[in-house]
C-alpha cells in the first residue's frame, strides 16, 4: 500500500483546472460563431481535446499514474482512431 | 477510357486463383511433409532424449518472416490486379438495369424491355447496374466469377462478357430471407443477332409510342416498370382505377383514353392522390398525331400483361414465355388484338408490384405464405402470442396482416412476411377489393 497513496492533489489545482475548463468552454462557444469552413470541426475538436486532456490528466489523476496506465490509454485511443480513420478509405472514395 | 477488355472477368479472377492456390499448395505440402517427418524422425522411441535444447536462431527466424512476406505480397498483387479488371468497364459494354427484390430479379434493357432472365449477346461485354428495392441481395454468376451486392439506396455494377452461348446460373448470394435460395435465375447468352431480334420484339404496342414518351421526357418522371418516380408509373395505366383529387375532392376514375388525354394536356385538373402537382401542361406542345400515338401506347399498357413480366415467379414466367413466343411468331401485332382488354384491378397491380405474388399464389397452391385464393372472408387459424386463435379474414384482418405480419402468424406458416409500411390505407383497400374477387 504505497505507490497509490502518494499524491493528494490539492483543492487549488482542481479549482484552477476547473476555471480553465470553463474558459475553454467559453472559447469554443465564441469561436463557433466564426466560420472557418472545413476547419470548424477541427477547431472545435482541438479545443475538446485540450479540455479532455485536462480532465484526464488532473481530475482523473492520469498525470500521477504509472506508465502502464498511460500506455494503455494511448492504445485505446489509437485503436479508436484507427477504427474511425480506416472507414474513411471507404466513405471518402465511394 | 477503357477500350476493349484485354481479358474476360473469368480469366482475370482465375489468374489470381492459380497464383494463390499454387503458392498455398506448396506451402501446405512443405508444412505437412515437415510435420510428418519430424514426428517420425524424432519420435521418443527413436530419440529418448532430445538432441538439443536450442530455442532460437535469428537467421532462420528472419528467413521465415521475410519469405512469407514476399509471398503474400505477390498474392495481394494478383488479387488486386484481377479485381481492377472486374471494376474497369469496357467502353462498348451494353448497359442493363438489374433490379432485385425479395425474391426475384428484373432486368430492364436499353429500350425499356424487361425480363426476369438476363439475356445477353455472346461476345459483347455487358454492364449490369444493380439496385435493390428492399434488402441486400447479391448478383452472382459463378461462370463469369462476378458478384456484387444489390444495396437499397445505392447503385452498384458488374460487367462481364459471355464468350460462349448457353444458359448460366445466376444466384442471389447475399442472404435475404426465407426464399433466398430460390432467388435463382439464369443468364441466357445468345448470339448477337438473335439478341438484337429478341430485344426488338416488343410486347404489345411497340416502340413508336415509347419513343414518343422518351422524346417528350415523360420517362424522366414516370417509369414503365411499376416503380413510382416523381409521377405514377405507366405500368398498367391503361384502364386502371385511379384515385384523383380534383379541387380538393377525391374521386375514383377509370383511366381511359379521355382521362389520359386530359392528364397530358391539362395535368393540373385531376391530381393523382399521393403525388405532387408537379407535371407541366403539354397543351399545344405535342403535335396532334404524336399525342394520338402516345395515347395508343398508354391505353395498351394494361396491368395484366405487365405485372406478369414484373413478378418473377413460376406461373408468371410461364406467361412471359408465352408472350415471347407469341411475339417471335407474330411480332408487331398488338396484344389487345389477341387478348381481352385489361381486367386487371389496381389491387392486382399492387400485389405484383410489391412482390406479394412471390409468396402468395392466386390458385390455391401453397407457397411461402397461404394462397390468396378464397382468403377473404374465410376463417383463419392464427398463432397470436403463442396461442392459436381463429379469426375471420375481414378488412381489419387484412390491415393487421400487412401492417404487422409478425403479430398473428397463419398456422403452419413461417413468420416470414415483411411488414409493408409503404402501403397506404387506400392501397390496402384496393388489395382487398381484388382479393375478394379471388373465389
Amino acid at each position, binding site marked *: 500500500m504505497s505507490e497509490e497513496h502518494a499524491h493528494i492533489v490539492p483543492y487549488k489545482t482542481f479549482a484552477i483546472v476547473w476555471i480553465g475548463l470553463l474558459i475553454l468552454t467559453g472559447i469554443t462557444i465564441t469561436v463557433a460563431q466564426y466560420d472557418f469552413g472545413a476547419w470548424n470541426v477541427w477547431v472545435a475538436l482541438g479545443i475538446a481535446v485540450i479540455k479532455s486532456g485536462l480532465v484526464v490528466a488532473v481530475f482523473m489523476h492520469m498525470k500521477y499514474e504509472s506508465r502502464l496506465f498511460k500506455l494503455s490509454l494511448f492504445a485505446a485511443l489509437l485503436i479508436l482512431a484507427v477504427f474511425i480513420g480506416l472507414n474513411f478509405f471507404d466513405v471518402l*472514395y465511394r | 477510357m477503357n477500350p476493349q477488355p484485354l481479358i474476360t472477368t473469368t480469366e482475370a479472377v482465375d489468374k489470381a486463383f492459380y497464383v494463390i492456390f499454387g503458392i498455398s499448395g506448396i506451402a501446405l505440402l512443405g508444412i505437412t511433409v515437415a*510435420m510428418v517427418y519430424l514426428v517420425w524422425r524424432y519420435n521418443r522411441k527413436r530419440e529418448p*532424449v532430445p538432441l538439443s535444447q536450442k530455442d532460437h536462431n535469428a537467421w532462420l*527466424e528472419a528467413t521465415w518472416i521475410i519469405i512469407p512476406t514476399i509471398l503474400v505480397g505477390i498474392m*495481394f498483387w494478383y488479387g488486386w490486379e484481377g479485381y481492377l479488371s472486374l471494376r474497369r468497364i469496357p467502353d462498348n459494354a451494353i448497359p442493363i438495369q438489374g433490379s432485385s427484390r425479395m425474391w426475384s430479379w428484373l432486368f430492364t434493357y436499353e429500350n425499356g424491355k424487361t425480363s426476369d432472365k438476363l439475356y445477353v449477346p455472346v461476345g459483347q461485354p455487358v454492364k449490369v447496374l444493380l439496385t435493390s428495392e428492399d434488402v441486400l441481395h447479391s448478383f452472382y454468376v459463378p461462370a463469369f466469377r462476378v458478384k456484387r451486392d444489390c444495396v*437499397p439506396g445505392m447503385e452498384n455494377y458488374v460487367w462481364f462478357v459471355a464468350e460462349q452461348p448457353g444458359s448460366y446460373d445466376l444466384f442471389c448470394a447475399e442472404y435475404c430471407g426465407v426464399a433466398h435460395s430460390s432467388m435463382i435465375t439464369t443468364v441466357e447468352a445468345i448470339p448477337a443477332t438473335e439478341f438484337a431480334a429478341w430485344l426488338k420484339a416488343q410486347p404489345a404496342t411497340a416502340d413508336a409510342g415509347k419513343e414518343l414518351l422518351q422524346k417528350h421526357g415523360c420517362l424522366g418522371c414516370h417509369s414503365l416498370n411499376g416503380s413510382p418516380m416523381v409521377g405514377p408509373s405507366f405500368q398498367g395505366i391503361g384502364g386502371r382505377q385511379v384515385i384523383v383529387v380534383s379541387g380538393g375532392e377525391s374521386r375514383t376514375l377509370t383511366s381511359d383514353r379521355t382521362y389520359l388525354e386530359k392528364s397530358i394536356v391539362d395535368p393540373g385538373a385531376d391530381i393523382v392522390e399521393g403525388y405532387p402537382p408537379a407535371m407541366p401542361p403539354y397543351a399545344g406542345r405535342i403535335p396532334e398525331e404524336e399525342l394520338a400515338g402516345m395515347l395508343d401506347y398508354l391505353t395498351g399498357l394494361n396491368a395484366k400483361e405487365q405485372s406478369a413480366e414484373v413478378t418473377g415467379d413460376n406461373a408468371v414466367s410461364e406467361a412471359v414465355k408465352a408472350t415471347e413466343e407469341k411475339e417471335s411468331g407474330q411480332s408487331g401485332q398488338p396484344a389487345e388484338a389477341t387478348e381481352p382488354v385489361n381486367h386487371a384491378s389496381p389491387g392486382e397491380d399492387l400485389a405484383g408490384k410489391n412482390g406479394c405474388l412471390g409468396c402468395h399464389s392466386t390458385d390455391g397452391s401453397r407457397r411461402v405464405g397461404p394462397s390468396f385464393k378464397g382468403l377473404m372472408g374465410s376463417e383463419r387459424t392464427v398463432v397470436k402470442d403463442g396461442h392459436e386463435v381463429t379469426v375471420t379474414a375481414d378488412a381489419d384482418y387484412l390491415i393487421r396482416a400487412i401492417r404487422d405480419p409478425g403479430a398473428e402468424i397463419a398456422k403452419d406458416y413461417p413468420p416470414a412476411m415483411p411488414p409493408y409500411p409503404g402501403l397506404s390505407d387506400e392501397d390496402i383497400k384496393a388489395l382487398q377489393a381484388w382479393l375478394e374477387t379471388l373465389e
Partner: protein
Amino acid sequence: MSEVTATASNDRGFFGEGNYPGIFGWIFSTDHKRIGLLYFWSVTIFFCVGVLLGLLLRLELFAPGETIMSAQSYNATFTLHGVIMIFLFIIPGIPAAFGNMIMPIQIGARDVSFPKLNLFSWYLYITGAVLAVTSLFTGGGPPDTGWTFYVPFSAQTSTNVSLAAIAVFILGFSSILTGLNFVTTIHRLRTKGMTWMRIPLFTWSLYATAWIQILATPVIGITVALLFAERVLGTGLFDPSQGGDPIMFQHLFWIYSHPAVYIMVLPGMGVISDIIPVFSRKPAFGYKAIVVSSIAIAFAGSLVWAHHMYTSGMSDMAVMIFSFLTFIVAIPSAIKVFNWLATMYQGSILLDPPLLYALSFILLFTIGGLTGLVLGAAAADVHVHDTYFVVGHFHFVMFGGTGMAFFAAMHYWLPKIYGRMYDKTVATVAWGVIMIGFLILYISMKVVGMQGMPRRYYDYVPEFTGLNQLATVGSWILAVGLILMFVNIFRGIFKGDPVEANPWGGACLEWQIPSPPPTENFGEEDPVVTHGPYDFKKAGIL
C-alpha cells in the same frame, strides 16, 4: 479463511468443501478453478447443441429440395448454429474455461484480480445464453438473419431479432469482463520471479486476446444496440430511406467480428504453444517471436475488418487497403506455425493425445489460414464470397483450429484439474475418426464453394448434389469420432486412474502442484519462479 488452507491437504483438492453446501459451493464460488469448470461445462453443453444443429443442417442439405425441414426452419437453424458456436462456444471456450482454470496458476497467483467479477461474468454468460434460447420461442419466433444480422433484413424481419440482439450485448459484456480481469491479473498478480519473459505462452496468448476483448467487444455492443434501436425506435441510422447507409452496419459489425476471430484463435494457438514443447521435451523455439506475433495479430487483426465486404459496394480504395492489410496479418500466423515445427526439430516427441490434437490444429489451421488468403485476395474473394468456400474456410480455422485446440486442452489439462486420466488408446482412435470425418466434410464444402454454391442456401441446383452428400456423410463420421472422444474423456475424468502432479512432464507452475490443485493453488508461501516456462533441464524433467 483458515478452513481453506485445511482443504489444501485434502486429496480432492479444490473439489473439497466449498464455501457453501452442494451446488451452491459452485454457483456462488469465486474460486477461479470452479468458475473455469462452470464455464467448461456450460460451453461444452452449448457446443453439443451447436454441433447437433450442424448435423441437422447437413441432413437438410443431403438432397435438393425439402429434406427434413422447411426453409424458414433451416434459416433459423443456421442462425442459431452460428450464434451458439460463435458467442456461446468458441469465444468464451478457451479463455473463459481453460484460461480461468489454468492462467492464474501459471503465473503463480492464488486467484484472478477480481474474483467476484469473474463469477458475475459467468452469470452474464448464462443470462445471455438464456435470452438467446428464449428468443427462439417468443416474439416472432427464432431469428432468421444469420449470425451476421445484416440490415436491412434484420431490421425488417418479424422474427425475434431484438431479443437476440440483447443477448449478444450481454454476452459481449461478459466477454469484456473476462478480458479486463485477465489483463489486470497478468499485470498485477504475477508471483516473484515471474518476469514477462518467463510467462508461459498460453498466458501470453490470453493477454493478447484480453486486449482485443476489451477494445473490440464494445463495438459489437453498440452495433447490436443500434440494431435494437432501429427495430424498436425506428432510428433508421442504417435505413437508406432515412438517409442511413446499410454498409455502415457492416463496417461496425466487422470492426468487432473480425478481431473476434482472433479472440477465437489466439488462445488456441497459446494451447498449442504450451503443448508442443512439453511433448517434444524442447523449449518453445522462438519464444519471443511467438509473444510478439500474438501481440501483432491482436493489433494488426484490428485493421482488416472490411475484407468481409469486398463485394458490398464499398469503395475500391478500401478494397485495396483492406486486402493489403489482410495479407500483413497472415505473417505473424505463419511465424507461429514455423516456430512450432522448429520446436519439434531435434526433440524427443511423444505422440500422446494432446500432441495429436495439437498437430491436427497445425494442419487444419494451416489449410484454413491458406484458404483465408484466397479470400483475402480481392479478385478471388469476389468469386467465392458468400459461398461454401467461405463456410469451408471458417470451419477449418474455427473447428479445425480453435475446436481442435479446445480438445487438445481438454486432453492436456483436464487430467490435471480432475486428477484422473482417460484411456489414451481410445482417445487416439477417436482422433483418427475425427480427422477423417473432418476432412471429408469440409473439403467437400470448399470444392462445392469453388463451383459456386452460395451459402445459407436451403435448396440447391442439382449439379451440387454429389459433393453435398459427401459432406453429409463426412459429418456422420465426424459425429462418431466426437462422441467417442467425449465419452472417453468424461469416463476418464470421473472414473479413470488417478494421476500424479505432472503426468506429461511439463515445466510450468501448474505441474508443480498436486492434481487436482488445492483451493488456494499454492501452500502458505507464494511460489518463486527461477526459470523459464519450458526449461526442462532446470525443472528436473531432463
